[in-house]
Each structure stands twice: as C-alpha cells, then as structure tokens.
C-alpha cells in the first residue's frame, strides 16, 4: 500500500561528471521501504551507499529515476522544499558525529527545533527527553570537545531524534566507535525504532550493525544485488 510506503526508489541512476568523463555511482536502484523498517545498505566501499542515502535525504539529485520520500519526489524538489522535507521529517547521523563545536550538547540537540520554530517550553521538554533517551542528561552543558566518541555519537542520535522524525538516515554511525559503544548506540536506535516507529536506514559495512538489521539491501557497483529480510 502506498500509504505505508514511505520511501519508493525506482530505477535510480546517479552519474558523477568529471570533465568529459562520467562515473555511474548508482545504476538503476529500485526498492521501497515501509514505516518502521530497520534497513541497511550494505556493500563494499564505493558501491554507492552514501550516494543513495544522500539522494533519499534530498541532499543530492538523481541523474534519472526517482526517489519518492514521504510522497515527495526528490528530483523535482526546490532546494527550499528539500530543506523543509529534511527539517520536518528526516534526521541524519554521520560517521564523524558532526556536532557544532561552539554549542553545548543541549544547544546542539535544540538546533533542529529552533529551525522548526518550536516554542521555548516545547523545546526544553523535547531536548531533555532526547537526552534522556541517549542517557546524557548529565552532560547537557558540556561542549562537544569534552565528550568521548561514544558520547558524541549519542548526542548526534539525540539531535536526529529530538524532532521525532519519520526517517533517520545513518551513514556508518559506528565506524569510529569501539564494540561496546557500537552496541550501546545500536540498542538505543533499536529501542527508538520499536517505541516511536521511526524508520532507520543505515549505510554500513560493519558486521555489528548488520547483525541488528531487520532488512539488508546489498549494493555492488551501484546496483542492488540482494535484498534480504533478517530475523
């Protein structure tokens, strides 16, 4: 049913142009996802995972084909509409955390809510709630440079989750974390997926991540070579 399908990707092609040459990073990707899935794009380096994630997140445009995200065709969105889509419905988590260094943990998590023009009380409540989810209320007033890698990534998760988005896109979220922290983060995400029905999409080749996935979409040379439900 189209209503439960929150992502529909059909025949997606992405070419990168380098002078007269072009490189086909995505070569006819087709798949769809329904609300509440816990999916991973898995594949070797250079297989197109990040490229696909960026197109789904409306940060990049496909060369041909279409990605319909929450009923919005990404390829024809104006950059303002794309920003609006990300703002309203998508949370990002990066390999390198990417917290804003001049702001405290609290302020980093608050930022998406400011963009959404939420009121003071609502912001404060949501930020504290999100910090509780990731177990970092005690560090609310620390700066990112005072945090460990695991803590930083938990803040990034809180920042992605604070607005309770429909979709969270996580690109190699555990690549810089040790095993214990990786499991910690993943359990947390799984719980949020369970409780809030947020759809999670990972790009990863980390076995630890793969072991948590409900569904694994295997990419190679810009194609889907396998799409496996896991149990």
């Amino acid at each position, binding site marked *: 049913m189209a209503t439960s399908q929150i992502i529909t990707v059909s025949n997606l092609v992405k070419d990168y142009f380098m002078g007269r040459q072009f490189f086909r990073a995505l070569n006819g990707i087709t798949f769809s996802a329904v609300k509440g899935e816990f999916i991973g794009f898995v594949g070797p380096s250079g297989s197109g995972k990040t490229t696909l994630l960026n197109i789904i997140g409306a940060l990049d445009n496909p060369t041909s084909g279409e990605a319909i995200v929450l009923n919005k065709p990404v390829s024809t969105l104006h950059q303002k509409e794309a*920003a609006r889509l990300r703002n309203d419905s998508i949370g990002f988590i990066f390999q390198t955390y990417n917290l804003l260094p001049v702001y405290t943990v609290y302020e980093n998590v608050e930022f998406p809510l400011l963009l959404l023009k939420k009121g003071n009380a609502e912001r404060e409540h949501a930020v504290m709630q999100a910090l509780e989810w990731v177990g970092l209320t005690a560090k609310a007033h620390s700066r990112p440079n005072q945090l460990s890698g695991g803590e930083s990534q938990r803040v990034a998760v809180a920042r992605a989750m604070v607005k309770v988005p429909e979709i969270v896109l996580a690109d190699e979220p555990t690549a810089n974390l040790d095993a214990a922290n990786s499991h910690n983060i993943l359990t947390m995400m799984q719980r949020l997926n369970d409780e809030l029905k947020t759809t999670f999409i990972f790009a990863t080749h980390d076995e630890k991540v793969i072991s948590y996935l409900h569904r694994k979409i295997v990419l190679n040379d810009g194609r889907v070579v396998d799409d496996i439900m896991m149990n």
Partner: protein
Amino acid sequence: MIRFLLKGLIRDHHRSVFPVIIVSLGVMLTTLLFSFLSGVLSDMIDASARFETGHLKIVTRAYQTLSDQLPNDLALTHVDTLLASLRRDYPGYDWTARIKFAGLLDVPDEHGETKTQNPVFGLAVDLLRSGREAERLNVRKAIVSGRMPQHPGEVLVSDELARRIDVGIGHPITLLSSSSSGGMAIQNFIICGTVEFGIAAMDRGAMIADLSDIQYALDMPDGAAEILGYSPNGFYVSDEAAAMRHAFNDRFTRSADRYAPVMMTLEEQNGLGEYISYIDTVGYIVVGVFLAAMSMVLLIVGLMSGIRRYGEIGVRLALGESKDMIYTMLLVESVVIGIAGSCIGTVLGVAIAYYFQEIGLDITGALRNSSIMMSNLVRARIGAASFYIGFIPGLAATLLGTALSGIQIFKRQTASLFKELEA
C-alpha cells in the same frame, strides 16, 4: 534563531574577534586619516583666509598682475567709498582694507646711528579703529611680550625678528620703503610688542602696523593694496564666493582701466584651488585604498572561515536549513561583525582624532622654509563625515567580503559541501 547563531558567533573567536579587530583597525585608520586631512585642509584654508586671501579679495588689475612685488603704487584708491559700496551691496560680509609692504628696518643705537638693518615684510591692518582685524589675526594671543598698539606710531614685530635685530619693547625703529608715488618712504615707529603666530611665513620677519600709519608712511591717503571680504559665518563657501566674484567683475568688463578693481576668490589665489583639490583627491585615494585593502582582507578572512565552515554548513543543511537561510544568516553575522568593528573603529578613530584636534601635532620642523600660510600645529578635525567615512566602508567591506565568499556555498553542490563531513 538569530540569537542562537549570535551566541555561536561570539563563542567562536575566529569568526568574531578576529574580523572585528580587522574591521575596527581599518575603520580607525580611515577615520583618523580622513580627520587629519580635513583638519589640515580646513586649517590651511582658515589661516590663508585670515592672513592672506580673505574669502574674497579685491585689488586693482595692475596690482594683480604684479602682486608678488607688492606694487603699492598700483594700489586701490578711494577705498572708503569702495568699502561703503561693498558693505551696502553685500550686507553681512565683513570688508576690510589692508596694505602689504616690504622694506628695511633700520635700528638706531642710543646716538641715533644705524646699529643694524634687516629686511622686513609688513602687514598693515586696521588695529586702532576696530578690534575685528586684531581678532581675525589672533593678535592678542600671538603677543609674546608687550601689548597691542594703542596709539598711532606703535607697531608689533615678530619675536624672532626682534631677537635677531636685538630690540625690545619701547625701542624706536625706522621703516625704509618705497612710497606709492615711487619715492623713498621713511617713517619712525615704536615697538609696543612682539608676536609669534605659529605660522612660519609670518614669524620669520614680519611687522604688524596700523593701516592709517602705513597709509601715511607710504603716502597712500585713502588707499589700500587690497580689500578682503569675509563671509558672515566665517566659512568659505566656494559657490557663493564664485557667484559674488562674477557679479562684481562683470561690472568692469568693459572698462580698460588698469586701476579697475578685480575680485578674486580664495581658491584663485596662491594656488589654493589646486591645493584643495589635491588634498581632496589624496583623501579619496587614501580612503579608497584603505577600503580596497580592507575589503580584500575581509574577503580572504571570509573565504578562509567559509572553508572552515563547510562542515558546519553541511550539518546545518542536513538538519533542514536551506541555502538561502544559511546565506542570509552569514550576511546577518557579517552585519553584526561589520557594525561592531565599525563602531569600535569609529569610536577609536574619532577619539584619537579628537586628541589631535585639541592638542595638535607639531610640525614646525617640516615648515621651516615654507611660505604656505599654514599653522605649525597640524590638527585633526572631526566633522560629520568623520563618523561615516570609515563606518560605511567598514560595514560595506565586511558585507561584501561575506557576500562574495558565501557565494561558494551556492556554487557547490549540496552533497559536495556535505562531503567535507566525511573527510
């Protein structure tokens, strides 16, 4: 939102303190330099007007062509009538007659024999009938010893000259000059005071005498070398002066009389016009160069911090800001920085200029051989322009630097900005 971003701006010293320092330095220098230039220019105009040129000056045509020789035989006659008609035609203007003369000062010893002789440049102004000329030339303040002339036959000499020829207050001197009829003029005076104007050209060897004494001495009854006119508010207004000059001179265009009066504006004398436009040009160039340099530096700072911020901008895009919003926020930040820097710079610049307006900068050494009517003290002058001459370019340069460097954000693909995150 804006408050949130400003909080970040203030915390990030690379983005706030550093550019603010650059802007305030540039603005301060521009303001200071401009204030100095306008101070020098207005002091020069003012001193010239008071001592030499008036805002307007009337001489005879013949006198005009030979004016460096101070040809008093070609001077104006019937001066009282001329003054009366000028006062009638241009009410509010202050018209005054003067004679400039050159000669030898003969200093007698106690037996009446010549002790020394020294060339002298003299200025005869109305000192006894009204106080206006004394005030205009600031004579009272210039007196080093003795007092103002109060009786006919009393003169002031420059302190430097008095020391050179070794005379003091009450000493008789004899002026040897040529009379208006071309003969020898000899007249005795008593020194009643010595003066120092702080103007090199006046202080080297000048005497100041009352006009009627010199009219008598040079045999110029009702005559004067020149009539000077001063505007009612004391400021030289170029356009107004030019219009008056036109109207006045038009009345005599048909006359072939060598002794017909001609009126000249301040700018038409002593090359002052060129001087004024020269200093104006220099002023524009200086401000322009500062502006260009400041914009360049700020552009580079903007580019550098822009590159430093690709990561941050990538995250903000991912979190849902649009490029327009980010660009706008960058401009808002730069306006804040521009205003802060320009305010600090203007305040500092004006404060330092104020110091040099009140205290002045002594350039006596540089003027030792100068004949420009210029004060030995260079003063800055704070005018309305001092408050915006640096401020506006400072703000503009900051905004321009950010606007240009920020365009990079639009040029780059969102995803490639974003790539910086993965590096």
